[in-house]
């Protein structure tokens, strides 16, 4: 029998509390979305920008937000966490707004973005992720210096 994992040692400081435990997995998911959204918007902007400028610019905005969130969660300092709260909030508003807009006005979104139909093409992870991010910031920041 292998030894059980070390009991979660009380994280010494805020940055390690932010990036350990479930935060570890959260950052990994954010990194995947940062990569996916960046790659997707880079291809869209470079090869077919004229086809759906609005959708592609929103893809690029989403990519930037995912990158900022990934970096901020991984850094975990007081300032980074504040930026992460803002970027998760913008992300949640963005996915809800773009999701609703893409349902109401299909013509404006002839090609999918990460946030179209509430992240339908990505297993609806985009709509859940900012909520998990905000919950994690709340939990990991509790009663710590």
């Amino acid at each position, binding site marked *: *029998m*292998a*030894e*059980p*994992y*070390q009991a*979660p040692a009380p994280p010494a400081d805020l940055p390690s509390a932010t990036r*350990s*435990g*479930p*935060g*570890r*997995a959260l*950052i*990994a*998911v954010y*990194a*995947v979305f940062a*990569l996916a959204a960046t*790659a997707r918007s880079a*291809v869209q902007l*470079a*090869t077919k920008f004229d086809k759906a400028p609005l959708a592609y610019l929103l893809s690029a905005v989403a990519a930037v937000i995912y990158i900022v969130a990934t970096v901020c969660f991984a850094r975990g300092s007081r300032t980074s966490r504040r930026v992460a709260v803002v970027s998760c909030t913008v992300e949640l508003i963005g996915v809800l707004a773009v999701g609703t807009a893409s349902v109401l006005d299909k013509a404006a979104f002839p090609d999918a973005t990460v946030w179209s139909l509430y992240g339908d093409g990505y297993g609806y992870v985009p709509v859940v992720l900012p909520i998990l991010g905000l919950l994690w910031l709340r939990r990991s920041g509790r009663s710590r210096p």
Partner: protein
Amino acid sequence: MIQPLATALLVVSLIGAVWSAVLLTLSRPVGKRILLGVLGLVELGLLVQCVAGIVAFATQHRHVSGVTFVGYLVVALVILPAAAWWSLTDRSRWGVGVLLIGCLVIPVMIVRMNQIWSSG
């Protein structure tokens, strides 16, 4: 694209995902090293697939988006090493959670690659 290899990589990475999920639930690092070894083999397979895919794209003149197809082939190579690194720097059970995510991303990318390749 080597079709049997794509299928094998898809199946093995899904097995890796189940394995990671079990380790995450047990909260014991049983066989984490073997799991990392298996993921190393998957990475090797992805490397072969990447080369074969680029060669096939260059020689077969299919009507597929080259940037997207080659992008998927190349980006897929980054996932597992990054997941392994991010997993190993964490000693808690959640390190395995990171491997689980990596193992789920690979099959999705392989399915997308197949869709792009067969659309041409």
